[in-house]
């Protein structure tokens, strides 16, 4: 083998393992940073929603052999609930919209306008999340607070969770809507691409059997390319789970108060890490930091699980899976 070839092989190998090494080392680093918290809190980290950094300027106390500020208590339940509920709401809003955009773009619009629409949708993905957050605070929250939420509370109060007092417009609904805006481009572009990659013969075959546009769209997205549809949705879910800035701005960033309805303020794991980090760094025992690292560990675990499940479903949804059913 030529020397240049050997060098080239070595570097391609190096580049190929960089992502794996990076992923593992980040996880190890964050986990290591969180170790004191696990010793301090144990399983109670998962069973309480209270989050209290304690009195950082008093003499630290020793709990389970670990130094911590007096009065400190850490539980992730409120943040976990917020993360899961805002992401779920975002997917619930984003999926049908992405689906309808895809049908419209693929089956109803002329090719010229389609190109324009698709590039517009992709541009949306490039808007910084802080801008979404700003828009959420200035435009969305007042509308929710003055118009939408009062109407919902009045007319939809028979649905559990939609009965209750309206606070400020910030909270679960605002976060879900903002998140859905952020993931619609992702979900849509994956579904549109998979639609484009369906062979022309298959599309024409469906039409020539007398299928309507709606039937063709429904069949292609939910059956023929189900793997891509599910994959795209989970990709969006992954983005929603980890999104920080915009949610931080419109969630109400609450701690220690559990939501009582969909109108309540909420908080997510990622937003909590960002907003609580500053004060955590002033804790000389580093326990506060360890607690945020523990949140990071759980967040990573959830995101990883989502993508693993996504892959599994996507694999099952491949063409081979339908043969003989």
């Amino acid at each position, binding site marked *: 083998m030529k020397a240049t070839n050997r060098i080239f092989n070595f570097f391609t190998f190096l580049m190929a393992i960089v992502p794996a090494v990076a992923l593992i080392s980040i996880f190890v680093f964050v986990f290591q940073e969180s170790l004191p918290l696990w010793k301090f809190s144990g399983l109670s980290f998962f069973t309480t929603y209270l989050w209290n950094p304690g009195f950082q300027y008093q003499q630290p106390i020793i709990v389970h052999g670990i130094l911590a500020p007096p009065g400190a208590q850490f539980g992730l339940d409120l943040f976990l609930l917020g993360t899961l509920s805002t992401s779920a709401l975002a997917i619930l809003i984003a999926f049908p919209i992405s689906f309808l955009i895809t049908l419209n773009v693929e089956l109803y619009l002329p*090719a010229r306008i389609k190109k324009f629409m698709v590039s517009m949708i992709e541009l949306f993905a490039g808007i910084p999340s802080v801008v979404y957050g700003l828009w959420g605070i200035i435009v969305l929250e007042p509308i929710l607070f003055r118009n939408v939420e009062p109407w919902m509370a009045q007319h939809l109060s028979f649905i559990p969770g939609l009965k209750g007092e309206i606070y400020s417009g910030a909270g679960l609904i605002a976060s879900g809507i903002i998140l859905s805006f952020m993931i619609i481009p992702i979900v849509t572009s994956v579904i549109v691409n998979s639609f484009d990659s369906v062979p022309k013969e298959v599309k024409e*075959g469906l039409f*020539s*059997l*007398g*299928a309507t546009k709606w039937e063709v769209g429904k069949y292609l997205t939910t059956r023929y390319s189900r793997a891509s549809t599910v994959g795209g949705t989970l990709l969006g879910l992954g983005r929603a789970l980890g999104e920080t800035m915009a949610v931080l701005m419109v969630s109400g960033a609450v701690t220690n108060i559990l939501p009582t309805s969909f109108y309540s303020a909420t908080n997510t794991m990622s937003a909590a890490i960002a907003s609580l980090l500053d004060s955590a760094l002033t804790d000389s025992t580093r326990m506060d930091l360890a607690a945020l690292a523990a949140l990071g560990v759980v967040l990573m675990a959830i995101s990883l699980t989502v993508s693993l499940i996504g892959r599994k479903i996507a694999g099952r949804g491949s*063409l081979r899976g*339908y*043969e*003989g059913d």
Partner: protein
Amino acid sequence: MEEKVEKIIEIERLKVETKNKVILDGVDLNIFKNCVNTIVGPSGSGKSTLLRSLNRLLDMDPSMDVSGDVLFEKRNIVDIDPVELRREIGLVFQKPNPFPMSVYDNVAFGLRIQGKKLKKDEMDKMIHQALEDADLIEELGGNLKQGGTSLSGGQQQRLCIARALVLRPKVLMFDEPTSALDPIAKGKIVDLIRALKQKYTVILVTHDMNLTRKVSDYTNLIYEGKFVAKGTGSEFFESEIEEVRDFLTEAD
């Protein structure tokens, strides 16, 4: 001969064009009932476009501008609901395109989207009949659960024919149905087309002159978007028209 045979489709001054190209330049053509009507011509001459305009599949492509009249059983096709029209005029493609599902579900697909509530045994019967008419049932050995995409190329093509037949169309259009197949599979399609014209009107697009010789009742040569020769099987092959002679020489 033409006077005795009933016309099922009449194409009058059909013009199909895009912004910068004329694909069909005002063509006239009659399609005769229970005959094999063949359209031959070099690639790019507008054969496939003609087929796709007959079942209004061209409507799906907004860049195509269609004018002129196509009468299907004396009704202008623009007055017929495209979904209904496509059930009456089935289309079988060059490349077999079974859906990734079982043989049974492939054939049932058109029936199911029709929204008609068929009883299970009624549906079974129609599907068996279609597969039998497409000369596929024996080869499958009654196993309709196997995947449609795992069949051989020739079987896939006959599955696609069965899928169209189950809707009981009046006209069946074939777009180069044998060009992707091996000689044996090709032979079976030839036999099948001959058998099908007893019940259906067949429109066959091909550039395979062997196939044309074997099955065609009426042969029409299209060249750069215009028909340059039309005739019954033997008339066509003996024609002295220059384009026909050129085409036959090239094709052989």
